[in-house]
């Protein structure tokens, strides 16, 4: 299979402009004849749904939540980047492009990233027009803050709820289209399979989560906007319902899965409290601006923080990275936390935590200033842990947060399957091996508002609505039968372990062996263990209830079954990528100073995997990455 990225020729500044002209258009009178299915209603899905419906296409949206407004984009706290240069600090489209390529450790496609930076300013305009109440200065102009270690202030925000407000904006635009009858939103509806016929995506199979009914939906194009797969680790900052089923089912039907090993770990999350832990909560990265990270110098020191004298504390980030100190990038901060905890110096229950201490900042700036900056975060921490961070240091530990990997897409955001587009976190995206803070919201909305609405026209203009398959076509009835059979199988095992117990076991294995630090040994072990867990799952899982009812255990069982297969691909990709870059750290590949060491000669490519069967090895296809504008360099934070 030849991967064609379809990146337009010419200078990077003109590629998108040129491409928009070169793409085919659908005649305005014909648009209503075309039907587009969108799965997922987060930032990417809702913004695409609203925009496509406005253009005149018939849009059919599906989400597993009870309302489109609850998609996990809603939980994003920090902000959204845009190259507006409102602060007159030298920001530009080129600088945002440069920062994103470099931040991604040179594993993203330059042309895509440039387009993202180019579009970023229009996103802010659109969101303001829709009524997103961004933070303002007293002058009435939009406020910005700096975020994620960049040297310019380009992040727009709405208190600590930026994701919520952006999503409600897109959701309200989509709601209007529903009222006008141009879009439909099917809630509590989970895509359980993709239907492919003649090399083209033809539609999807959906399970109604209330009645259990399976139905076939046919369309001229299918858009997956189903988010990331961080929940393969069981404990992550993702919502409980986030799952990889839509993209995994598409992968099984032929869509290539790119860079699954690029997963991001966020350094500042609230540590695990016990076996009952169901998910992890992120504390905004901004806390590192004023908090100092430390652990006791002595192993196994169980004294309360206040009783550990200054001389017996190790401010390890400040010690090792005098220039950046506590503000080193996410991956560096995370790895160092793991290292001190592995060395027996972690704090709190289980020794899996480090202190984030505000005593010095409170002394210097006063409690009021700290309250103003972080009040809501301190409150949230207090609520969860019953510890007052104004009086004692916070305890934090890294957690899985975002998946840079996803389905492979070309410049048109189309997968290798004709008619299957993938947007937002679900695609392998523009973040390379590491995503910068406040860039996920930007990418989701760029894809949905301003990229897909044009590129999907190029896809649709090449097909005729008359060729759309009827939902009773054998391709659909076969897929329906398969989905039914799969449900029957899961319900019929009636074993001795719950779905959750398998998910936890799989997640822990992945976290230990393919988490912050990965080695040939740990990955080989995981690759041997995962098929065993999977085999036990299919022989010993207990799924109560029936198929024709609201059955949350059955929903979860289907998702975990897919995670079991994805986990294996994730480890295989990590094992194959014999270098360290961004969120992927192979202990065999580090500099003398312990930093990630890329191998540009051999791994400057996107690794796109082709499914060949659950028990057979996938085939690797490589899309070479060329860097004409931003030249790869070694990161250094000393």
């Amino acid at each position, binding site marked *: 299979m030849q991967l064609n990225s379809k990146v337009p020729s010419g200078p990077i500044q003109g590629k998108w402009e040129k491409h928009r002209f070169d793409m085919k258009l659908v005649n305005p009178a014909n648009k209503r004849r075309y039907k587009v299915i969108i799965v997922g209603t987060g930032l990417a899905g809702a*913004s695409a749904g609203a925009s496509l419906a406005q253009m005149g296409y018939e849009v059919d949206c599906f989400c597993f939540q009870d309302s489109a407004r609850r998609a996990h984009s809603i939980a994003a706290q920090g902000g959204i980047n845009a190259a507006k240069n409102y602060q007159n600090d030298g920001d530009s489209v080129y600088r945002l492009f440069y920062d994103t390529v470099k931040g991604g450790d040179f594993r993203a496609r330059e042309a895509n990233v440039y387009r993202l930076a180019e579009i970023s300013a229009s996103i802010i305009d659109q969101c303001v027009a829709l009524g997103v109440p961004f*933070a303002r200065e007293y002058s009435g102009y939009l406020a910005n803050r700096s975020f994620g270690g960049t040297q310019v202030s380009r992040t727009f925000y709405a208190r600590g709820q930026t994701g919520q*407000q952006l999503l409600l904006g897109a959701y309200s*635009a989509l*709601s209007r289209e529903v009222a006008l009858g141009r879009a439909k939103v099917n809630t509590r509806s989970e895509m359980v399979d993709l239907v492919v016929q003649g090399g083209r995506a033809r539609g999807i199979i959906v399970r109604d989560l209330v009645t259990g009914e399976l139905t076939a939906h046919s369309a001229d194009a299918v858009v997956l906007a189903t988010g990331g797969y961080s929940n393969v680790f069981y404990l992550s900052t993702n919502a409980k319902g986030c799952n990889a089923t839509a993209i995994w089912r598409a992968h099984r039907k032929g869509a290539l899965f790119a860079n699954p090993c690029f997963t991001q770990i966020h350094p500042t999350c609230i540590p695990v409290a016990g076996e009952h832990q169901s998910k992890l909560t992120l504390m905004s990265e901004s806390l590192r601006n004023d908090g100092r990270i430390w652990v006791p110098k002595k192993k196994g020191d169980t004294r309360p923080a206040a009783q550990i004298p200054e001389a017996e504390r190790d401010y390890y980030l400040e010690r090792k990275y005098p220039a950046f100190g506590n503000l080193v990038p996410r991956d560096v901060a995370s790895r160092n936390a793991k290292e001190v905890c592995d060395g027996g110096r972690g704090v709190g229950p289980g020794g899996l935590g480090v202190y984030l201490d505000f005593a010095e900042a409170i002394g210097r700036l006063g409690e009021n200033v700290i309250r103003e900056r972080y009040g809501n975060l301190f409150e949230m921490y207090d609520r969860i842990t019953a510890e007052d961070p104004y009086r004692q240091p916070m305890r934090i530990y890294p957690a899985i947060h975002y998946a840079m990997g996803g389905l492979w897409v070309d410049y048109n955001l189309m997968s290798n399957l004709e008619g299957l587009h993938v947007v937002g976190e679900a695609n392998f995206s523009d973040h390379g091996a590491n995503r910068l803070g406040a860039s996920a919201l930007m990418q989701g909305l760029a894809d949905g508002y301003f990229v897909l609405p044009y590129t999907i026209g190029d896809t649709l203009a090449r097909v005729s609505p008359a060729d759309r398959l009827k939902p009773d076509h054998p391709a659909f009835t076969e897929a329906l039968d398969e989905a039914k059979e799969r449900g029957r199988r899961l319900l019929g095992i009636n074993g001795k372990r719950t779905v959750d117990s398998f998910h936890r076991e799989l997640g822990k294995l992945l976290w230990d062996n393919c988490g912050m630090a990965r080695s040939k040994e740990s990955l080989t072990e995981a690759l041997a263990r995962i098929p065993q867990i999977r085999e036990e799952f299919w022989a010993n899982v207990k799924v109560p209830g029936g198929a024709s009812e609201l059955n949350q255990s059955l929903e979860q069982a289907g998702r975990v079954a897919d995670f079991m297969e994805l986990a294996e691909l994730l480890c295989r990709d990590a094992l194959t990528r014999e270098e360290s870059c961004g969120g992927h750290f192979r202990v065999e590949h580090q500099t003398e100073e312990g930093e990630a060491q890329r191998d540009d000669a051999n791994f400057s490519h996107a690794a796109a995997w082709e499914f060949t069967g659950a028990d057979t090895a996938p085939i690797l296809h490589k899309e070479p990455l060329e860097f004409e504008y931003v030249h790869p360099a070694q990161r250094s934070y000393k």
Partner: protein
Amino acid sequence: MKLTLRIWRQDGPRDKGKFVAYPVDDVAEDMSFLEMLDVLNERLTLKGERPVAFDSDCREGICGACGFMVSGVAHGPQKLTTACQLFMRHFKDGETVVVEPFRARALPVLKDLIIDRSALDAIVQAGGFISARTGSAPEANAMLIAKPVADRSMDAAACIGCGACIAACPNASAMLFTAAKVSHLGLLPQGQPERRQRALRMVAKMNELGFGGCSNHGECEAACPKGISIDFIARLNRDYLSGSLFEKPEPLSSV
């Protein structure tokens, strides 16, 4: 600690439903309420019983998916807290805790603690938006918005759509929910052109769906996990009144 949970069990929308008592003997203080239900469900599953169905997603208090009555109070005894952020340290050993779904005619029970909140989506679809076609937006800083106005708008926009206000209201009114959306958009300059029509349409939809009227009990504000102020209801009333006086309800148009 040991707790007795009296949980509402209902097989489906047409089932009558009943309370069933479940003793839980080893509740840890740092569990969230939902994590305690997870633990109970694991045990029920292994015993061959049907686990308790409840909605939840982000478990960070922002998505609005979770929510039920905990001993008669929406989202439980902690102020400004969703059920997912309610921790067991706030309960006493030996306590009996009654867990039942949010109840309102317009939000029917689907199963156990899960309710159908699609009526809230319908209210938003009736007018809870600003009609701004993708691509038509002017430069963001071309329109200045005073900081106090933007902040006030954000206070209203913080609504998570959980339905607690409706469950807490003796009339099962959706006024606080509707008022929050009308105020969020109506406070902003870009929301002005559709301001009165928005209020008219959303209130009409609310009435049509079987929500009750507002009689100023204030239970909604007390139950709201995001602290949305009842003042916004006054603002909705004003927009509705001026809409009724000066404009006729018009159907939504695509142009």
